[in-house]
């Protein structure tokens, strides 16, 4: 099973000028793989993540989550489907004030339908893996940006979703903690979950099973180590990938 999308288009109008933030994009998030979409700011990466997660509707094209077309679902059905299937780490600070770190993480279980007992075990395990076990009973306003990001990752994966979407998951993190996050995300993929990462961090790109480049709303496959994407584009060495991401597309 996978999340499949085809011919996605999303237009915005800014200062009387219409532009395509997402332009004829077809992308797949298979289970058990880390899919990375890399690109510069304003390339349309976050819009693509929001479309794939059902947070916004595309103007054209469709998204199928395990065979269900998001276009045919009501807002409530999309919300429920997202809550059950997709754990999301947004780019911006996203913790709820007034709730402790532990409660922020456990709250995800309310929407993913997990029982609180099992969530409680998961909270402890993932908090240790992400180095936030000491922070579980503090409030978000006393956390640094990097700590908040790690809590957001813990929240997304504790919900035991089938897919994890993360927008700049290593942003504001030092290499050591960025590595911890990527290790956790890798273990999620290895356990059969589909992982979509939006980034411009080379570390994240280097951990991709499938790497796409995005610029001007268009997505270009860069490499795959699975053979599922673009058979004519075999995996490339990391240096070659980076060269491509700096301006050249396959």
């Amino acid at each position: 099973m996978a999340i499949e999308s085809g011919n996605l288009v999303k237009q915005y109008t800014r200062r009387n000028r219409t532009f395509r933030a997402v332009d004829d994009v077809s992308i797949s998030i298979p289970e058990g793989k880390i899919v990375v979409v890399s690109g510069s700011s304003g390339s349309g990466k976050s819009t693509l993540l929001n479309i794939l997660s059902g947070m916004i509707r595309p103007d054209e094209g469709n998204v199928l989550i395990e065979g269900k077309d998001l276009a045919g679902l009501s807002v409530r059905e999309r919300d429920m489907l997202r809550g059950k299937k997709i754990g999301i780490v947004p780019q911006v600070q996203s913790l709820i004030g007034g709730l402790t770190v532990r409660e922020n993480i456990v709250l995800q279980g309310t929407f993913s339908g997990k029982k609180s007992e099992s969530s409680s075990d998961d909270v402890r395990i993932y908090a240790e893996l992400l180095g936030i076990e000491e922070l579980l009973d503090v409030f978000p306003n006393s956390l640094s940006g990097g700590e908040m990001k790690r809590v957001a990752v813990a929240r997304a994966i504790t919900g035991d979703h089938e897919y994890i979407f993360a927008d700049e998951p290593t942003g504001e993190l030092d290499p050591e903690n960025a590595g911890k996050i990527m290790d956790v995300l890798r273990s999620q993929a290895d356990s059969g979950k589909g992982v979509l990462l939006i980034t411009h961090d080379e570390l994240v790109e280097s951990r991709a099973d499938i790497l796409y480049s995005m610029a001007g709303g268009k997505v270009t496959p860069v490499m795959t180590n699975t053979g599922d994407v673009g058979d004519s584009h075999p995996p490339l060495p990391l240096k070659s990938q980076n060269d491509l991401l700096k301006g050249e597309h396959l």
Partner: protein
Amino acid sequence: MKIREVAIKKIIYGSTGAFVVLAFALLLSFTFFAGRILESSLSDGADKLRERLGADMAVVPKGSEDSYQGIILSGEPVECSMDRSIENNLKGMDGVEKVTPVIYLASLNASCCSVPIQIIGYDPETDFVTSPWISDEYTTGEADGDMVVGYNIALDVEGTLTFFGRTYTVKARLNKTGTAMDKSVYVTFDVMDILLADAREKGVEFGEGSSEGLSDRYVSAFLIRTEEGADPDLIAGRILRYGNVGVVQSKNMISSVTGGIGFISKIIRIITISVIAIVVLVTAILSMFRAQTRRKEWAVLRMMGASQSWILRLILTENLLVSFAGAIFGILLAALVIFPFSRFIAEQIELPYYGPGGLKVVLIALAALAVTLVAGAIPAIFAGTKAAGTDCYVLMRDGEN
């Protein structure tokens, strides 16, 4: 986590400005509860006065009409006397069903008397006003005489009262009326004769001649009950022809009391409605502001899979919990102000005041709670609907901005 848990955490730790909503909820419930209790007490006081008066009119010495009203409405101690000779004329008058004489004697604020109050003498053979109100028999008198006391009269430690140097045993206490009658002492004419004789020795003027059997010759007023269907104005007109007497009709006294109560009730209602309107308006503005400043939070919750109805219910639950707490505090505060000072309030407004019973207090408290909750819920529904109905991605962009 349950919505209620999240709402409580947000209220306590979330810096959501909930305390402002709580303060306004407190103000609303305080005003509503205190206002309704006052209004109810005044209304019931008027009803009790109407019942307690028992007579349709009082015949008093000419010029003592205001003093009589003072005795009835505010318990102002006064004494007045008139010749008893017109009693038979009154009894024989067309339209008059019953006539009973009464004597008013003010006790002195001096060492000779326990308390400065109005002592009312009644004739047990013809009385139809005082006797029906006796609620508790205490003892049969063994002292100088028996007394019946109003509901609010405090007795000496021995259960007695002293007037003009003589001690009396209290035989019974009257039911509470919420009127000035609760502050009076009632005695039969034989006891009143003793009191009058003692009072005259202390310089009190009442009647003329010997102090022996004064009540046979002088009284302060005649209370009259008219026959059903009789015209009280016509009877009052006939009585006034005797000269040297005045007539106070109960209906006029009641109407002046109810007029005063109506005026106060109107002010209470205007204040209550104004406060409700202000609180609803302010709560609406606050709720919209709070929902607006938390747009990023809604976006995150939607992103996590919270439905629009979940967010609406969260906002509603927060407002209801805060309004509930505010309502409870407001009701308790109002109760602390109203109940201990009810007698003081009654004295200040100089109107009959009969505090409501337990069940009525509970019903008024529930009504105050309901009004406060509705006033908190309606703005929350609007704010919540607006917050929950906004597109998730737009909220995220707002949050970033």
